[in-house]
Structure formats: C-alpha cells, structure tokens
C-alpha cells in the first residue's frame, strides 16, 4: 500500500541517513524484509533520495544480493569458489538442479527453494560448501544432496532464523 511504503522508506532513510551513500544499505534492508525489491519501494526511494530511477534500477540489477523477484522460502547457495570447484562443486550443483527439478538457477515453482551460486563464502578448508539460509554445510557431496533437501523441505521458513552459532 502506498502509505506503508512511504512510511517504510522514510523510516529507513531516517535510520541510515537521507544521503546517496545510504542507498545500498537501504536496499539491503528492503531485500531482507521483503525477500526482494518491490517496484513501488524503489520508485519511492528514487523520489526521496532524488536519484533518477534508472540509476536505482542499475544498482538493483548490478549486485548479486538484490533480486527483483521474490525468493523461495529457503535460499540454497552453492559456493563456486576455486577450492570448491576443484573439489567437485559443479557436480553438487548439477545434482541439486536435478533433484530440485530446476532447468537452471532460480526458484522452484512451489516457491520452496531458490538455487543460486555464490562466489566463495570463505570456508575453503571444507570445500565443497553449500549454504542454506544461514547454515553452512561443509564437505558436500552428491549422495548428501537428497537428504539435505528433504531436511529443509520438511522445515518451515527459516529465513529469519537465529543463526546456528548463537
């Protein structure tokens, strides 16, 4: 609703500062809350920060963190870093594509899973690594994929779950 958007954007700008340099932080917050960047929110930000909409659109489509489409309940990120690649990450990725019945990277039709690649989560000693939501799964291999998917499919939304280490 337009009123809510105005309030939301106004609040975010108060929190982060009504400056150009707050743009990315604001967008990250929106992405976190809504799981994507809704068009009306982007237009509102463009108005409030006085930045031309095409520039906002460019920022929204430039960075990997942002999506213009909603993501699934569980975001599965396969690390495609060099160490993971050398230890078999492409095969794990292919197995995930097959098991999630996805023709390519993206969200499953039932909006349960979004499969993405990510360039290095920094756990190279435990390659190959797959991150689902906030949990890091080390030493992944093809046989482990099915079980992992089954575990998350049964679980409700964990996007805002408290990370494992707290």
């Amino acid at each position, binding site marked *: 609703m337009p009123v809510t958007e105005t309030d939301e954007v106004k609040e975010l700008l108060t929190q982060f500062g009504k400056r150009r340099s707050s743009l990315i932080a604001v967008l990250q917050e929106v992405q976190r809350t809504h799981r994507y960047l809704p*068009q009306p929110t982007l237009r509102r930000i463009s108005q409030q920060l006085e930045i*031309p*909409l*095409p*520039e*906002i*659109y*460019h920022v929204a*489509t*430039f960075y990997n963190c942002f999506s213009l489409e909603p993501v699934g309940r569980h975001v599965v990120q396969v690390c495609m870093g060099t160490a993971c690649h050398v230890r078999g990450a492409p095969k794990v990725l292919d197995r995930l594509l097959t098991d999630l019945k996805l023709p390519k990277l993206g969200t499953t039709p039932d909006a349960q899973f979004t499969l993405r690649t990510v360039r290095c989560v920094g756990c190279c000693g435990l390659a190959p690594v797959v991150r689902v939501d906030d949990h890091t799964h080390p030493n992944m291999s093809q046989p482990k994929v099915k079980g992992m998917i089954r575990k998350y499919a049964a679980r409700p939304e964990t996007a805002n779950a408290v990370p494992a280490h707290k």
Partner: protein
Amino acid sequence: MPKITINGIPIEVERGTSVLEAARFLGIPIPTLCHDDGLIPAGACRLCLVEVSGKNGANRRSRLLSSCSLPAEDGMVIHTHSKRVQKARRLLLELYVATCPSSKRIQDLASAAGVRECRFEAKNEHCIQCGLCVRMCQQQMMAGAIGFAGRGERRHVARPFDMTSERCRQCGACLYICPVCEQRCQGSTATTTLCSGCLNFAPVCFQSYSDAMCFLEPCHACELAGPLRPEVGLKVRAVKN
C-alpha cells in the same frame, strides 16, 4: 599549465584539458566511439587509447590509457600511433566487428585500422554499450529516462522495469547519437563478418541497390575506390549529384 609532448610535438594546455582534446587541437586523428564533445567522457569504448610514458624517460613501463579521460599532466609523453597502439586498435576493432557487424561506423573504423579478417564468432548485437544514449539523455536532454541495467554479460541499456518512463519526452536524441543504429552497413556477409567493401574496391551497395546508401558520409570502400578506381568513383559522384 601542463606541458606535454604528443608524437614528439610539444604543447602547453590549460589544466583540465584531456589528452584527446590536446591531440585534436594539433590535428592528430584519434578514433573514438563513445566520445562526444558535449558529454562527460566515459572511457568505455577504449578506442582512443594512446601510449603514455612518464616524465623524463619512463621509470616505469609505458601504458595504454584512454585519452578522453586522461587529464594532461606536466611531463607526459604521448604517442598516438605507436606499434602497440595500432595493434590494440586493430584487435579491438576486429572484436567490435564481430560484436556488431551491421554498423557502418564500426566497419569504417575497422577498415581504416587495417582489419582484414574477423576471426571471432559474430554476435550480431545491436548495441555496443558505448553509453552515449544514456549520457545524452541524462546530461544534454536533462531527462534521465534510460540507463544501464545488470552487469557483465547481462548488462544492457534499459528502461527501468521495461516501462517507458514519464521523463521520456520522445525527443529522439538517443537515436540520433547512437553510432550503431543509424547507419547500416550493407556489405557484411555472414561468412566474413567484415564488410570487405574496401577489399573488393567496389561499392558494395550497388550489388543490391541502385543508389549508394551512404547519405552523408561515404563508406570507406568508396573513399578508397574513388581515386583508385576512377570509373567507379565517377559513378558514385554522379549518383550523389
């Protein structure tokens, strides 16, 4: 006021002058695609590269830098047509032809740089992402209705959310300034990608049309064909008149 040397010619320019401007002042031709005098330089097309050495004999290896974005600094030694620059231009233009064979401007630049074959896979794109349309809309027309979207291979010129913005006044400046879409080259074939007009030394247009298709600016093929093939050159001049 910085003093620089271009191709051995010393010149003193006002602070803030780019090397490209300085070279043009001296009448030295440097090819460009994404440059326009009325717009802030982008340095995106890389055709205006020149070889820059440090002052008083390079203490570092000389580098290729885009002259449009390079402010002249005291002691710079510039070469606009060195072997290295020529090789860079030739390779860049070979790749430009592969990316966008239908652009007359690119075919002309390629011929002038001595590109004789195109070994890369033709991509047949219609945009080289020079950014002129975006900068024109933003800086000259003060509308800012279009911009880039995406990154890397996904990057493209876009209307936000694929909807024409209310800021677009339909002025057509973006079409006007585009170096690719306003004039098509009729000569390139699927197999060679290169127009090859100048290789044949015959205006290629006449194979398909009864008029030369060059409107305001003769194709490089015709320019070459003119003095070397006087009978052809006469025909072209007659058609234009």
